[in-house]
């Protein structure tokens, strides 16, 4: 019986759309807090993009139930399996937490959460400056954690693509229909 070697097309589309959004978000976020004249236009992308990411990650979580991830290749060492699963759990958790903490901190500061034009989100926390200060710090810490997790994820993807060549990278990256077995590259 042929093994499932690839993520479903919908899962791949979600993954790569989110990859672009999240990477853009990380760079916009780190750039805007250091900017003066570019601050406003960057913030006005940051807020609606954050909400879009929150919606996408929710859709992705539900999608996982219908389109489960393909199994990892046989022979992959247990520590790598653990690292793969753990980093995915951390990525999902952060992609939920960051937009929610951002929304919460703006609520606690009593900033209107303007998305676009007259479209605004309601506050989810009461006006409380001290709470804002805590959440603002949490937002930064989680964002650095997300960037670090992204770097681990990205490095691992490149290792699978160029060194291990075990089909794990292609299971997300290839647009060709793949079936059969995981190819295991011969090394040296």
């Amino acid at each position: 019986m042929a093994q499932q070697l690839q993520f479903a097309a919908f899962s791949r589309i979600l993954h790569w759309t989110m990859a672009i959004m999240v990477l853009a978000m990380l760079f916009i976020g780190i750039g805007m807090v250091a900017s003066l004249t570019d601050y406003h236009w960057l913030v006005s992308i940051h807020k609606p993009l954050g909400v879009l990411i929150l919606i996408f990650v929710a859709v992705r979580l539900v999608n996982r139930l219908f389109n489960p991830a393909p199994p990892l290749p046989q022979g992959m060492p247990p520590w790598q399996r653990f690292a793969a699963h753990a980093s995915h759990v951390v990525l999902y958790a952060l992609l939920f937490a960051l937009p929610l903490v951002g929304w919460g901190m703006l609520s606690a500061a009593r900033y209107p959460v303007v998305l676009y034009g007259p479209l605004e989100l309601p506050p989810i926390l009461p006006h409380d400056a001290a709470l804002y200060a805590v959440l603002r710090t949490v937002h930064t810490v989680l964002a650095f954690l997300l960037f670090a997790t992204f770097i681990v994820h990205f490095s691992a993807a490149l290792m699978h693509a160029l060194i291990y060549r075990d089909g794990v990278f292609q299971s997300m990256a290839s647009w060709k229909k793949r079936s059969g077995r995981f190819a295991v590259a011969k090394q040296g």
Partner: protein
Amino acid sequence: MVNDPSSATPYRLRALADKRILARLAVIGAVVLAVVGCFAYVGGWLSPNRLTQARMIDTFQEVNGVHPGFRRNHAKGVCIAGYLESNGQGARLSKAAVFRPGRVPIIGRLSLAGGEPYMADGPAAVRSMALAFRPPDGEEWRTAMIDIPVFLVKDPESFWEQLLASRPDPATGKPDPAKMKDFVARHPETARALEIVKANPFSSGFANSSYNALDAFRFVSASGASTPVRWSMAAVDPFEPETPGQSAAQDKNYLFDAAIARIGQAPVQWRLVVTVGQSSDPTDDATIPWPSTREHIDVGTLTINHIEGEAPGNCRDVNFDPLVLPSGIEPSDDPLLSTRSATYSTSFTRRAGETKEPSAVQTPAGGKGA
């Protein structure tokens, strides 16, 4: 499952001696480092001389000292509340809910420019009025205005340079006048703005001061037409010049105490006047006044009927970010707007997390007025 057990070894990097594998590892390392490097560059870590929000606020702290819990600029202030009675005239140019005929509740803050929360009131300090308009079924609008007719600098770099020039000399404890003179000499726009400011005497108090938003904005009408505007709160109380006797008073808070007394007697009013710009009027330079012949539209009357000391949850805990705008009001291309939004935000974040000391200006319990 695998073809050959011996081939299940791609996960062991014993093939490191293989030059091709080493080269690929080097490529991976380079790509990952490049991404981290870009992130660090965008975040400003690779360019320590970049003028960032943090650097601007750090400079305020260098000039004024750190006063935990207080705004880094306009540190001394008092909270006010009341309402705007819109007459509907503003709706011609802006679709914002605040300009529909009717009453819009507001909260606000009167303050003095400067980063020292306990400084003595004086004739030289610029006065400001910050407001948050909160229409019951519309978007919030915040504005922070000051009582001089034009701003003294036009961009963040000049603002920062001027701030540095005002830094007290460690030897004398006072700013070095030569530095400020040098700054003005290098900034003709500041020299011109100073002339205009000097030609307009200060009034005797907060209540009979008029306050100007200075930076240009754009009003967007229901039909989508975009108009450059500036706005002011024009005092209804008659103008009286500040007299030397006032600042000689023993009361360090004489300006604020007079405002508290005035509002305690009867509500104070201002007219919200919108100046309609033309396409030839500069929107990106707050040091340049627009011609006085421009159309002025009186869009409503502001009534302040309540004043109280800063306390948890009131104006103390609000950031009067000038870019909290409803749909119908948009920023212009003035670089100071985004700069103000950014630096106010850093100041707010820092003070929000600090332990608070009581503010200099206090009112009897419950505040004064209705």
